[in-house]
């Protein structure tokens, strides 16, 4: 059976168009209690490289706090990604922070 060229082209675009980069991944200590996972995502779409500040990343902490208002978020995995769209004219930066909401435990020592 002979595939039409257009089908091959579509298949090739799925397999060859890898256009997402992971810039960095970090992980903090993972708690024993992992019953309540929480996640925060911040994304910024950048056109032609015009990006005048990176303040959007500082919203992640507030977003995580709002999802775990009575406790702490531990075991945070931060994934920093870049997705390219068309001809490097448009791209997005996406920061994903995933962790576990646990009851508050003070870190203040005696």
């Amino acid at each position, binding site marked *: 059976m002979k595939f039409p060229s257009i089908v091959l082209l579509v298949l090739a675009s799925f397999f060859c168009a890898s256009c997402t980069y992971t810039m960095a991944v970090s992980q*903090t200590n993972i708690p024993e209690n992992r019953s309540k996972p929480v996640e925060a995502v911040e994304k910024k779409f950048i056109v032609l490289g*015009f990006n005048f500040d*990176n303040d959007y990343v*500082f919203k992640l902490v507030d977003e995580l*706090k709002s999802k775990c208002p009575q*406790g*702490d978020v531990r075991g945070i995995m*931060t994934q920093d990604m870049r997705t390219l769209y068309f001809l490097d004219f448009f791209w997005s930066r996406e920061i994903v922070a995933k*962790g576990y909401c646990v009851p*508050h435990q003070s870190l203040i020592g005696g």
Partner: protein
Amino acid sequence: MPSRYRRLTELAFCFGLWSLVSSCAVLHKVQLSDVESQTIHGKPVSIKVSQTTIDLRETARLAQGIGKQAGSKALSNAGNALETYTMLFQFGPRTGAPVYNEFYARGIPEQLSEECKSGYLSNITSVRETRSYPIVKGEIVRIDAYCFQP
């Protein structure tokens, strides 16, 4: 005015305009620490350290381009020489442009401790970014955190 000098003036004007409009913030890496929601006694703390540097690769490309456009062989050669220098001494993986003082971020823990003397720091967001102007780059490390007092 000879056409060569007029061309150079036009290029200088374009470069000046480009310098004014193209200051961009380039994000390299973000890292979060554990997050505490008990912010009643928490005080936001922010530390920023930076190094201003010259991007020699970009300078070389610019000199090559301007030299070619303006018909200046000396400038093109200077660009080529600079490109060769960067190829020899600035190879390998890098984050941002190379700086002249690699210790600029080493004092961050001490600075953070100074901001939160009798407490502890949590909710830390660490950002490595570049403030990018043509040729000149500001390599930045910024730490935002909350200081919790007992």
